[in-house]
């Protein structure tokens, strides 16, 4: 018998819902089968904790006396520029932004020790942040300069708004060139001397619901230690990629845009991150509850690392030069063994995303649901699936004349 999200929520309210983490679900379905699991289990929780560059926060800082129109002007938070193209005191800070004084890669490889992601972490941790703003002055907003400390507890709104998070699957990065390279996938030594991957695999949210059947606009999630929502499909969402027999994409595919009130989040799950020679970013903790509506969902959520495959991509040449193709596929089971084979050569592996933290997130979300503190959100509109025709397209350059 199929269940509905409403029925599951009634069970959660009564404290009767059966909740398993995606790891526990693997064992359960393995022992009892998908049919029985679908009857017994109500929700499976997932988790992921990795660097997600399309992340940021917007703030409404409140009006000073006299007032200033930061909108159209410029401002920095702890010297990191924030976007001011909104109304008077609404600003948006992206996690990859670094200060004008940062040497970036002029001394290669750059350290990117403090960027937007670090400001977000400090802000969420409750530290005072230095705001400096310059504007042009108007009759209604006469002030031209503002320098002040701001704090998360004093601003009006503080909202985490991430246009692309929780990528469904990702590349395994190697470097076939003859020199060390510094990438968003970490330091890659020449001759494929190491490989890095970035997915929680069997615990990862979108790998447990490969066709996005249970998620959409309005899905309630664990976000940065608090509660957030899926608000759109993510940028570069590409549901039409090739998939395995189990429905799991064989390359980076879906993604989601998420948002939530940052005031109830925690610096433990929003961590400023510095990728050597690449840039600053934010490591975001996300967990999604997956309602076990029927047998198909039970089987989807029982997917194992051994059955999820990722493409090995050369970041020495193929990736930067947008050359298609890959060096073969490898399962997360193999990746987690610590060694894979690339072009017949043994290559040690490392992960960018923390599996132990992903496990912790799935556990926290499970606890919230068991306690009846967290109800499932009913999506008002689905995330576009493989039939939507939505594709991740390259840019076709055209001359300006």
């Amino acid at each position, binding site marked *: 018998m199929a269940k509905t999200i409403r029925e599951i929520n009634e069970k959660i309210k009564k404290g009767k819902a059966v909740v398993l983490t995606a790891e526990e679900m693997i064992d359960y379905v393995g022992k009892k089968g998908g049919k029985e699991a679908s009857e017994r289990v109500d929700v499976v929780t997932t988790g992921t904790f990795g660097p997600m560059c399309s992340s940021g926060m917007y703030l409404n800082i409140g009006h000073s006396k006299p007032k200033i129109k930061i909108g159209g002007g410029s401002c920095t938070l702890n010297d990191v520029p924030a976007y001011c193209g909104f109304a008077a005191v609404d600003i948006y800070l992206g996690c990859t932004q670094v200060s004008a004084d940062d040497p970036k890669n002029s001394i290669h490889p750059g350290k990117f020790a403090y960027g937007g992601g670090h400001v977000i972490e400090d802000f969420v941790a409750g530290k005072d942040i230095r705001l400096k703003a310059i504007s042009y002055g108007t009759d209604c907003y006469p002030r031209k300069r503002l320098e002040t400390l701001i704090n998360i507890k004093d601003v009006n709104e503080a909202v985490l708004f991430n246009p692309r998070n929780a990528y469904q699957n990702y590349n395994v990065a190697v470097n076939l060139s003859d020199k060390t390279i510094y990438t968003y996938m970490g330091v890659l030594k020449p001759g494929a001397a190491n490989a890095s991957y970035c997915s929680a695999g069997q615990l990862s949210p979108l790998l447990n619901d490969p066709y996005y059947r249970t998620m959409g606009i309005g899905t309630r999630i664990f976000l940065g230690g608090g509660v957030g929502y899926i608000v759109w499909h993510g940028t570069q969402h590409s549901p039409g990629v090739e998939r395995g027999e189990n429905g799991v994409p064989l390359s980076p595919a879906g993604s989601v845009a998420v948002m939530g009130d940052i005031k109830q989040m925690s610096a433990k799950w929003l961590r400023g991150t510095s990728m050597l020679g690449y840039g600053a970013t934010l490591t975001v903790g996300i967990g999604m509850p997956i309602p076990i509506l029927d047998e198909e969902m039970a089987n989807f959520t029982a997917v194992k690392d051994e059955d999820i495959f990722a493409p090995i991509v050369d970041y020495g040449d193929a990736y930067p030069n947008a050359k298609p193709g890959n060096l073969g596929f490898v399962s997360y089971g193999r990746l987690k063994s610590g060694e894979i084979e690339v072009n017949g050569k043994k290559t040690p592996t490392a992960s960018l*995303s923390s599996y132990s933290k992903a496990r912790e997130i799935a556990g926290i979300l499970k606890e919230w649901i068991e306690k009846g503190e967290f109800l499932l959100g009913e999506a008002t509109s689905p995330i576009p699936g493989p039939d939507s025709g939505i594709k991740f397209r390259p840019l076709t350059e055209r001359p300006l004349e």
Partner: protein
Amino acid sequence: MKVSKNIVLKFSKDIVDRPIVCRLASQYNLEFNIVKAYITPREEGLLILRLEGESADFEKGLEYLEKSGVLIQPVSKDVVRNEELCTHCGVCVALCPAGALAVDEKTRKINFFGDKCNACGFCVTVCPMKAMEAKF
């Protein structure tokens, strides 16, 4: 029994110009490989050695160093992980040349084996969370 360890030796200004380490080989039958060596502006010496030999010789060798006025520390005292900052992602694991950083298969957390560390400092440079620190 053979022992093989990385150790940090600190030489005060008074002894930095004396031939001390060479006797580990000539008198105590120990093999050493210099991992790192420098003299600070205050003329104090720092030497990181990979020291190898029979355990009895090893003990005697260390005793000799101490008597000569050398301060001996395990590398793990000088290369430390800030447990609050580490997220156990694993970026460091495939880059550590000494095998001192490894994934625990059960917990999927990253173990740091200070006695294997050769103090190269690469983990300090690459850690995205700045959780590794070298105190020299």
